[in-house]
């Protein structure tokens, strides 16, 4: 059966599924959904359907990106639009099945939105909601829609038509098309993808390799995981197109071991590709032959760097080597190799499917297309998003993200992971594109976007990143091995209140040195969090050094907790929960913290009921003396009847 026959069949099956006389239930069971309890919701759905003897189709789908309201369950009744229910618990399931499936009450009170042409009274359209409206979903178009474990659902929506087109072209034409789209590497550095392919193609040699970098190591980033879990075939199709264009017959996917579900789904997808003649010898009857292998990482951030990654595939320590020679000339096993990020491969597939011009219609003059981001940290609506390049940071954080949790003040947004920088409120109106982010001292990175509020200390934040890069430094080159270590020591000193003004200058000098002289990208970019926090939040550093004050009240050595005797209701909650028994008090006795015993873990502050809010934090000023024991008697106000 030819691919076109398979597609016809797949479309018929897909249409039949859409117009199924049976109700359909879709549940997001990617990792985020599972962490929020999707599997127990799924079990309840099965039990309830059985209990009521309802015949329904259950589909497990990928992540639609609304992580803050996981688990998500969608119900499609014949002749009705798809309704999305958010924050579903096992307790809600019986209501949905009894009221909607059996009695036709769609429960607008529990619904988040509808998907599709028609609407339901009392329920907004999902894609009209502020979190989804500004988004342009190209790479993520299938996530949450199709079953990632069924290749036919991908084929039904033009899947592998990009490959068919490519195979009918010369490889030069394919590269031309990718170049025309303006696609830049989505892994962080932003090198033009078409040009990269061309370099590798024109390298002499018959044995060439391509690699998909799925070692998404940036803490705070999960775009690639979601894409691999939600639509693995789009990435695999992109790899086939790239391999054909470059002239490679073997490819590797290097995926981090922390992503077991992504690996499982890739394995299923690869098996299905083989069944349909999309892998192996003479793919779709052409002269093109290709094999894919999956290599699991073993926990090393530096393996996201291309030369280190290749060392790891070869079974060695993942240590970068100097470039040139670039991988396009001498890469895996010394052969010409092209390496791209997960998202770049998926972009390549859609570019070939729909055309370069279509793709280039979103984005800016120099940054074309869309980019996925994981929007996390202190925003109200966390999730996986895809936006056209050029969108303003404010539109992402306040529009899509809904602003800061508890309406606190925005402090900074950190883009690009440990290699990126912290951008302050004054840059909220700048566009998100490769050039603007670099100019601001950060990088696009692979798409991590961590929002912080006034309760984040920027010195501690910089220390956090340095702690990470320092422990992940492979140790090969001196600037990175020793430079990050010394920088970390200085930052630690400052957060402990032992820093001097000279330390700040030394930190700057070291940061510049490491940036300019480290061997690989990890070292070159490791100082970015320090440089940007120093550029935009130098006052916070100075407060730590000059006044021994942590303005965000985070650095343990510089803060003290204090129970305000005016507000303490002697409820004994903090007294009982303090892990070091540093709180003195008792029934009807106002509580007092013994500052000598206190480890500043913050438990008391976390457990004090918000209606009392009796805990204060002091920094840079003396803590008031505790009340003498004789005055600690708490007079409980008589309750009115």
């Amino acid at each position: 059966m030819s691919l076109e026959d398979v597609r016809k069949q797949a479309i018929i099956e897909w249409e039949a599924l859409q117009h199924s006389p049976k109700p359909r239930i879709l549940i997001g069971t990617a990792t985020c959904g599972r962490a929020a309890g999707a599997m127990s919701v799924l079990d309840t759905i099965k039990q309830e359907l059985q209990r009521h003897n309802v015949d329904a189709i259950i589909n497990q789908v990928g992540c639609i990106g609304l992580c803050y309201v996981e688990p998500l369950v969608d119900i499609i009744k014949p002749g009705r639009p798809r309704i999305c229910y958010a924050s579903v618990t096992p307790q809600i399931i019986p209501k949905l099945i009894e009221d909607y499936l059996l009695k036709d009450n769609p429960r607008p009170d529990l619904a988040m939105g509808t998907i599709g042409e028609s609407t339901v009274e009392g329920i907004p359209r999902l894609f009209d909601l502020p979190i989804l409206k500004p988004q342009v979903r190209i790479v993520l178009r299938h996530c949450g829609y199709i079953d990632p474990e069924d290749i036919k659902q991908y084929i039904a929506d033009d899947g592998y038509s990009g490959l068919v087109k490519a195979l009918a072209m010369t490889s030069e034409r394919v590269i031309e098309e990718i170049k025309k789209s303006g696609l830049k590497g989505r892994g962080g550095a932003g090198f033009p993808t078409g040009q990269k392919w061309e370099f590798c193609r024109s390298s002499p040699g018959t044995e060439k390799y391509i690699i998909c970098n799925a070692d998404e190591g940036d803490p705070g980033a999960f775009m690639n995981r979601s894409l691999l879990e939600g639509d693995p075939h789009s990435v695999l199709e992109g790899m086939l197109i790239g391999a054909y264009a470059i002239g490679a017959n073997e490819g590797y996917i290097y995926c981090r071991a922390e992503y077991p579900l992504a690996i499982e789904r890739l394995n299923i997808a690869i098996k299905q590709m083989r069944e349909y003649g999309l892998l192996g010898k003479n793919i779709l009857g052409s002269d093109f032959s290709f094999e894919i292998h999956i290599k699991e990482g073993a926990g090393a951030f530096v393996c996201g760097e291309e030369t280190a990654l290749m060392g790891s595939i070869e079974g060695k320590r993942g240590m970068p080597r100097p470039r040139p020679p670039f991988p396009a000339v001498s890469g895996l096993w010394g052969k010409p190799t092209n390496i791209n990020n997960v998202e770049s491969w998926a972009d390549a597939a859609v570019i070939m499917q729909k055309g370069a011009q279509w793709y280039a219609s979103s984005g800016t003059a120099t940054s074309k297309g869309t980019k996925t981001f994981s929007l996390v940290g202190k925003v109200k609506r966390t999730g996986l998003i895809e936006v056209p390049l050029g969108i303003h940071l404010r539109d992402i954080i306040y529009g899509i993200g809904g602003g800061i949790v508890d309406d606190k003040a925005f402090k900074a947004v950190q883009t690009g992971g440990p290699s990126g920088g912290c951008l302050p409120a004054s840059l909220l109106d700048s566009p998100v594109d490769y050039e603007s982010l670099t100019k601001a001292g950060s990088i696009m990175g692979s798409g991590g976007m961590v929002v912080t509020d006034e309760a984040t200390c920027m010195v501690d934040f910089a220390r956090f990143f340095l702690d990470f890069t320092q422990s992940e430094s492979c140790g090969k080159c001196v600037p990175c091995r020793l430079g990050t270590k010394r920088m970390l020591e200085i930052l630690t000193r400052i957060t402990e209140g032992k820093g001097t003004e000279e330390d700040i200058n030394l930190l700057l000098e070291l940061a510049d040195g490491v940036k300019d002289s480290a061997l690989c990208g990890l070292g070159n970019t490791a100082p970015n969090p320090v440089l940007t926090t120093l550029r935009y939040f130098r006052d916070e550093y100075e407060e730590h050094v000059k006044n021994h004050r942590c303005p965000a009240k985070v650095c343990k050595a510089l803060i003290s907790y204090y129970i305000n005797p005016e507000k303490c209701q002697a409820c004994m909650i903090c007294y009982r929960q303090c892990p070091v028994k540093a709180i003195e008090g008792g029934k009807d006795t106002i509580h007092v913290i013994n500052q000598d015993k206190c480890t500043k873990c913050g438990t008391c502050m976390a457990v004090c009921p918000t209606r009392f809010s009796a805990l204060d934090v002091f920094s840079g000023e003396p803590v008031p003396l505790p009340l003498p024991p004789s005055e600690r008697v708490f007079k409980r106000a008589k309750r009115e009847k």
Partner: protein
Amino acid sequence: MSTTIDLSLIEPVLQKHKGRQGDLIAILQEIQGTYSYLPEEALIHLSNNMRIPMSRIYAVATFYAQFRFTRPGEHIIKVCQGTACHVRGSPGVMDALVDELDIHAGETTKDFKFSLESIACFGSCALAPVMVVDKNIYGRMTTAKARQILGEFKGVK
């Protein structure tokens, strides 16, 4: 610490990767999957069997964070220390567990009941802070919830 282990358990692994020294990382992962750590005897056996110098095995195994050289506890508790988790309070969660278990990250309790590990990022950042006990993922952690979950695991056995 020397315990006797059953080397025959990894025969299928060595057979599968026979002659493919480049698979070293996968081999080590499968050995760890078998014993839940990398016992010295198993590594010596691997070295002899596949003719890979012990120095190279050790160099690779110590480079990657995933590998352990001592027997872990019955339950492995992993606390995510990623950026999103950090901003949302994972250091406090870790401190609470350190306090409850009286061990540091990377260590195992004397009774081999619990091992505590810190992990760079699970990629479930939207549910930060995240903690994983064995295969169970717990999102939106607080210090109190961490202590409570630990208590449940202590109570089971």
